């Protein structure tokens, strides 16, 4: 059997992932600072190729920048049902019921209080309710896969949901995303804005996934994986996962007092 050079295989992608990881290790060896975030351009994730800037970011050091403050949300922006993704329809969704909880803090460890957390995910079969998701896995009439809540006084969030399934995508032949929940977070400053994905411990798909592997720093990558916490599991009800989140980026110091 000869390989078809027009087909982008997992082997090709895995070799590129490996190459990027080795290049990063070299950088560290030469004294570079660890990089907690993915590079904006990361070739193994093919969608990034034509969509990332090639020019360096322009650093704004202005202490009066508007981005050092940020939007706020409140009780009118959510409803009670929003944090329970298993109760948004007439019946219960299929899947492993789970609760995911954690604490949102800034880089100084201060809790981010009263801020909006938004999540979205595939159903237990790995299918999004989204019209453009063409994966031939069943839709679940009892699951939209969308949740939101406000963090409490300690910066904690909690969602009740079902464990999402892994799903195929078209980055390359036989590409599968590890199971994940998408998270959107606001800090006290617009600079701290974060959209990310939470993964589940021990997923065998990690090493094949260019999106997770775009975080070339191993320690940083591990911070995207939730911890199974038996003390959070509820008897006869749900499994418990913990995932703490730390928001990057500066904030205006004047804003801390009021929040």
């Amino acid at each position, binding site marked *: 059997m000869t390989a078809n050079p027009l087909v982008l295989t997992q082997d090709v992608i895995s070799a590129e992932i490996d190459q990027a990881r080795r290049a990063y290790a070299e950088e560290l060896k030469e004294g570079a600072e660890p990089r907690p975030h993915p590079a904006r351009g990361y070739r193994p994730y093919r969608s990034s190729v034509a969509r*990332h800037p090639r020019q360096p970011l322009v650093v704004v050091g202005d202490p009066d920048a508007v*981005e050092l403050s940020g939007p706020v949300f409140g009780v009118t922006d959510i409803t009670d049902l929003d944090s329970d993704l298993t109760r948004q329809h007439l019946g219960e969704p299929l899947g492993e019921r789970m609760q995911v909880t954690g604490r949102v803090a800034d880089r*100084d460890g201060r809790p981010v209080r009263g801020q909006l957390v938004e999540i*979205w995910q595939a159903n237990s079969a790995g299918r999004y*309710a989204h019209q453009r998701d063409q994966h031939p896995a069943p839709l679940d009439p009892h699951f939209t896969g969308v949740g939101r809540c406000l963090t409490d006084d300690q910066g904690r969030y909690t969602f009740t949901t079902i464990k999402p399934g892994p799903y195929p995508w078209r980055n390359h032949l036989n590409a599968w995303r590890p199971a994940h929940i998408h998270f*959107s977070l606001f800090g006290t400053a617009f600079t701290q804005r974060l*959209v990310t994905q939470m993964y589940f411990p021990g997923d065998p798909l990690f090493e094949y996934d260019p999106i997770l592997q775009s975080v070339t720093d191993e320690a940083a990558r591990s911070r995207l994986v939730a911890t199974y916490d038996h003390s959070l599991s509820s008897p006869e009800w749900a499994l418990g996962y913990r995932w703490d989140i730390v928001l990057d980026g500066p904030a205006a110091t004047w804003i801390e007092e009021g929040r």
Partner: protein
Amino acid sequence: MTFLPTPSQTVGPFYGYALPFTGGGNIAPAGEPGTITVHGQVFDGAGAPVPDALLEFWQPAPDGSRTGAPGSLRRDAVTGAVVGRTGVEFTGFGRVATDADGRYVLRTLPPGGVPYISVCVFARGLLHHLFTRAYLPHLTDPATEPLLRSLPEHRRATLLAVREREGVHRFDVRLQDDGVHEETVFLAFE
């Protein structure tokens, strides 16, 4: 600085039920005199419109206040549906998904104290969001704005919205130079 940050990951293509909301681009109260429209398209490095980008906007109120106000996603407690901002308080926050042609429209009031609206861009293919600014030409003196002054002319131009007519401004976002058009200036904060 002892806590290590959670890495960014792409917003992906399937955020549609979760993030955009009805009226997300209408920061200005309906019918408010002085409302301005900022609109444009998002393009990729091939010059093609990006149909699955999500733009967020953040700005001071017209009086210069930067505290914002809750209620951008205000919901009906019975149905859970978004019912829109009250129009009494200025939330300062907007969110718009681009349409099939990569277009967005924002209706807002001019920011107080600064000549720009802060823009955050998310999209499938972007592993980390991008910040930029839409400078409103009628409020901007490029000679006195430190950020604009620091940029060469052709780069600076990407941050300046273009006046189309009274109260209507065009601001395109180019994620990458397409060989004809300059890539938008994107920002980092320290």
